[in-house]
């Protein structure tokens, strides 16, 4: 059944010479039937209009008893919410519809927010965090009781994340408050639309699943890899060799988006482009660490067509319609085919013109990855998104929010929460654990009843203990946890002539301008005097005082410290399989740039190309040490985990491992003993070394010390509300007065290893930071298929990862070895010789 377009709409389309697209009509008729729906469409297919048409039609036709919120629109980006609101105003104004559209984001003034609650618009555009806040307010019930539709934009980018969990819980609450609500999801092309449709649907017996509408695909994208005339680097992620060629492409195109994977890469590319910008092209920079006002300015200039190019990170992956972009350059490897397709879609936002994209590999391995990604994109193949269980820390946050809205019954809230797909399988025991955590911390030891945040009263309902709890909730809402950031402050004072005798630098002058914020872990790697790029300038670190990195401008041409190694996204499983296949088959190397081909042929000559199945391991001596390099192609995170676990085993096998470094493609371990000799003599078995049981006890032991695990715990502790988010202005000076979540982790792990927050952190780590699931799959795939080559020197394929050595934080044995190395330099000072203290 196809809904006919009522007259003002049919006339409006006709007046512009348009015809409503099939998927727009399909969504309209699904809405009339009261069905939940999911629209899967490429960019440029009129997705937004399709999502709102049912609302506009319904608001025009139906007589309503009173004005109230009719449709909620949720977008992952506030800029997108604002932009979509603007786009929606056009048809509303042109048809003269009596419909009010407003946005509500973190930037909305409190006066306007209050007014919106008293006198809500017909359509409200907002974000998942703002929805959570509204749902946690005391007037949520009256505000949402008559809502008819909720439109969830860019659902593919939200669903499989903690933000998606929060949104799913919010949706479940909305359905409870507004019984006549239907949900519509808008998504880019995904591998499995049914999975997303299930996410949209209430998980109850007899509840129908959301219907899927699919828009026709646009023209095939036109993607090429840059075949550089310069020397393609062995390692690194800067792509500076190709800067002239990128510049030439920017000059030739109308408007270019230059995507990179990390903030520091964006900085480096931007700075180098300006160094050669003889034509004075308007090239701008856009990334998450820049001041928000600055980013809005760039976006506005882009929309107005005043810019020639923008160098950006994933901050521009989603959403806003730039109109005139006709070229997308992706510097570095795209890491996944879905991300690449999404980025390519930023060019030529018109469906029927092909998008034009250029991939610029930064090193030789990335050239392989780019070729694999092009093949995947041309075939329109998507990465798989794994369904995930809802995060427990997000559940804790939601429970507190619900208590802030109104007293609740645990039974009713449990029933509501399990109506959301991510929490459909949540056990009552886990729900109760979350509830107890919110109330008193949920510790087996007890004793915090007097400090409880929520309490069960005599009527059996849970309510907040005092108003301060609700305030804390409002400050902590959301699932995005920023890295610890330092302000970058420009100072004029020079460091007093090197170091004083005591090793302390003189007092550094303060009081200059703040340039922005930078991740603390990046600054931690630097020593005073080191130079790095930030905000498009080369800066020299002078020192760190409290929460500020004090810097001066540097006259150096090249920064000493290169950008943070590696993309932030790990190589997708799907793309990894394609890369392995390409490497194993020399017949397909003809499509590779000549330098890369030569490199692989050299590898075939000196060692061998890694086979498609199985795991390839090389061992060789170098510089007084021995090396083991293996090539699983499972992404840096999984390789880091593998490195940690393997070095533990090697230690027990007396191979004396000293350290390791992981890339997206391979893992290198250096040792005192020669592993190759031990493998050949049968003293140590490679199969046993790589046996799957390393994910058992070894893993548990290692997790205790893992920096990744501690980071996961910190995120969970903040999301669940155990510790407060460090909000600007509330910053205390001196780090010793803040609570270290690392120490909380140590104490909790020893005394209550099954505490809900530790379980939440483990779940995060195994899918995210440690990538355990992927490691487990790899170990099982290669079982009995490990191929070892013993070489007398480093192989061509091993060079890139060896160049990455250094600058990774270390733990466990490697940590002791590092301390020993630092301490050994003093051994001649016999006074400090440690002696055995057994008494």
């Amino acid at each position, binding site marked *: 059944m196809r809904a006919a377009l009522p007259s003002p709409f049919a006339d409006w389309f006709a007046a512009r010479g348009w015809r409503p697209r099939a998927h727009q009509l399909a969504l309209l008729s699904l809405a009339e039937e009261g069905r939940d729906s999911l629209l899967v469409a490429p960019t440029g297919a009129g997705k937004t209009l399709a999502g709102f048409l049912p609302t506009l039609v319904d608001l025009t036709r139906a007589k309503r008893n009173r004005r109230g919120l009719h449709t909620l629109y949720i977008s992952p980006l506030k800029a997108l919410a604002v932009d979509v609101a603007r786009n929606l105003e056009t048809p509303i104004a042109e048809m003269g519809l009596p419909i009010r559209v407003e946005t509500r984001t973190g930037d909305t003034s409190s006066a306007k927010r209050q007014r919106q609650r008293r006198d809500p618009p017909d359509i409200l555009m907002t974000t998942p965090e703002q929805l959570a806040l509204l749902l946690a307010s005391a007037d949520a019930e009256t505000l949402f009781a008559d809502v008819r539709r909720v439109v969830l934009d860019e659902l593919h980018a939200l669903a499989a994340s903690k933000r998606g969990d929060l949104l799913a819980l919010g949706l479940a609450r909305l359905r409870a408050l507004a019984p006549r609500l239907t949900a519509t999801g808008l998504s880019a092309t995904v591998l499995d639309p049914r999975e997303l449709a299930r996410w949209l649907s209430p998980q109850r017996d007899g509840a129908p699943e959301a219907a899927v509408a699919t828009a026709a695909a646009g023209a095939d994208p036109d993607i090429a890899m840059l075949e550089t005339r310069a020397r393609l680097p062995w390692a690194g992620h800067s792509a500076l060799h190709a800067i002239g060629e990128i510049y030439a492409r920017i000059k030739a195109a109308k408007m270019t988006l230059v995507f990179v994977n990390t903030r520091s890469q964006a900085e480096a590319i931007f700075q180098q482009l300006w160094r050669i910008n003889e034509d004075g092209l308007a090239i701008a920079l856009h990334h998450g660490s820049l001041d928000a006002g600055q980013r809005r300015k760039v976006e506005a200039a882009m929309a107005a067509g005043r810019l020639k190019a923008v160098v950006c990170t994933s901050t521009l992956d989603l959403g806003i319609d730039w109109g005139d972009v006709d070229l997308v350059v992706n510097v570095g490897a795209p890491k996944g085919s879905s991300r690449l397709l999404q980025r390519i879609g930023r060019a030529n936002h018109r469906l029927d013109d092909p998008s034009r994209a250029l991939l610029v590999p930064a090193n030789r391995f990335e050239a392989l990855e780019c070729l694999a990604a092009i093949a995947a994109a041309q075939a329109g193949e998507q990465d798989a998104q794994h369904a995930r269980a809802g995060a427990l820390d997000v559940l804790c946050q939601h429970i507190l929010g619900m208590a802030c809205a109104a007293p609740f019954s645990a039974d009713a809230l449990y029933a509501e929460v399990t109506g959301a797909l991510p929490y459909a399988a949540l056990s009552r025991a886990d729900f109760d654990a979350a509830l107890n955590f919110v109330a008193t911390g949920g510790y087996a*030891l007890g004793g915090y009843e007097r*400090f409880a945040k929520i309490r069960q009263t005599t009527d059996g309902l849970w309510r907040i203990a005092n108003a301060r709890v609700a305030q804390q909730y409002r400050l902590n809402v959301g699932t995005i946890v920023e890295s610890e950031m330092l302000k970058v402050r420009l100072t004029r004072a020079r460091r007093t002539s090197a170091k004083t005798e*005591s090793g302390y630098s003189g007092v550094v002058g303060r009081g200059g301008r703040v340039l922005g914020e930078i991740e603390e872990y990046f600054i931690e790697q630097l020593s005073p005097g080191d130079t790095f790029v930030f905000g498009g300038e080369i800066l020299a670190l002078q020192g760190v005082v409290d929460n500020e990195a004090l810097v001066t401008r540097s006259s150096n041409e090249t920064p000493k410290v290169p950008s943070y190694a590696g993309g932030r996204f790990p190589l997708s499983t799907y793309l990894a399989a394609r890369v392995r296949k390409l490497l194993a088959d020399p017949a397909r190397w003809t499509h590779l740039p000549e330098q890369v081909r030569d490199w692989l042929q050299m590898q075939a000559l000196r060692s061998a190309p890694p086979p498609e199945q199985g795991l390839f391991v090389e061992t060789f001596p170098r510089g007084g040490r021995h090396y083991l390099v293996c090539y699983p192609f499972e992404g840096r995170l999984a390789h880091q985990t593998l490195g940690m676990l393997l070095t533990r085993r090697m230690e027990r096998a007396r191979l004396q491992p000293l350290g390791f470094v992981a890339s997206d493609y391979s893992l290198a371990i250096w040792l005192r003993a020669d592993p190759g000799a031990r493998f050949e003599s049968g003293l140590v078995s490679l199969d046993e070394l790589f046996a799957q049981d390393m994910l058992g006890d070894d893993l548990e032991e290692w997790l205790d010390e893992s920096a990744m695990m501690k980071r996961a715990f910190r995120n969970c502790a903040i999301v669940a509300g155990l510790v407060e988010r460090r909000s600007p202005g509330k910053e205390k000076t001196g780090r*010793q007065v803040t609570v270290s979540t690392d120490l909380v982790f140590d104490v909790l792990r020893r005394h209550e290893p099954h505490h809900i927050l530790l379980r939440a952190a483990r779940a995060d780590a195994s899918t995210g930071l440690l990538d355990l699931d992927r490691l487990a799959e790899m170990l099982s795939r290669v079982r009995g298929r490990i191929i070892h080559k013993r070489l007398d020197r480093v192989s061509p394929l091993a060079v890139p990862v060896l160049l990455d050595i250094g600058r990774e934080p270390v733990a466990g044995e490697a940590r002791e070895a590092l301390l020993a190395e*630092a301490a050994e330099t003093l051994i001649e000072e016999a*006074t400090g010789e440690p002696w055995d203290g057994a008494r």
Partner: protein
Amino acid sequence: MRHALIRLAGEEFFADPSGGLYHPGERMLIVADLHLEKGSSFARRGMLLPPYDTAATLARLAAVVARWRPARVAALGDSFHDPNAHERLREAERAALAAMQAGRDWLWIAGNHDPGPPVGAGGQSLAELAFGRITLRHEPRHGRAEGEIAGHLHPVARVAGAGGSTRARCFVTDGARCVAPAFGALAGGLDIAHPAFAPVFATRAVVAHVLGRDRVWRVPGERCGR
């Protein structure tokens, strides 16, 4: 467990990997910044940190007391996280503390978190303690202070090497005086490159005795820092 020798103002001390400092001459064990009941102190203000920190700190303390069997123990201040913290000790924790105190002198030196004596927590309370050329106090004095052993600053060292970098608690000394690491399970750390250390060690080169898993590593000050 291997410890390191630290010489201060001509006296010998042994730095234990737990963070305790033992003086064989006085048979005295020195520990700094226990911060007992830090967890519940935060819980009072709405951050429900785990209530296990006191038990964890006391267990660690019991182990180092058993190892050295000192005749006296001096806690260098900030032993309790807030002035009422000692009232919140659980029965078992009180008993563990009493067991450690039995048969030896126990000296609580006042700190900024616990300026008053901890009533009912055993031992004696002092503002400072001196023996020979050594002075024990909570907060290190600015300028020269020969023979001073203090806490308060919670020193940690960041050590970088070819393979990466790591952070660990440490004793920091210039041969004349020493700042001891925080012993408490929830007591955080402050990098010894932080300017707060500058007025304490203004004139002489420092050495960090960095706490490893089961030994203490002696690392020159210039190898620690940002």
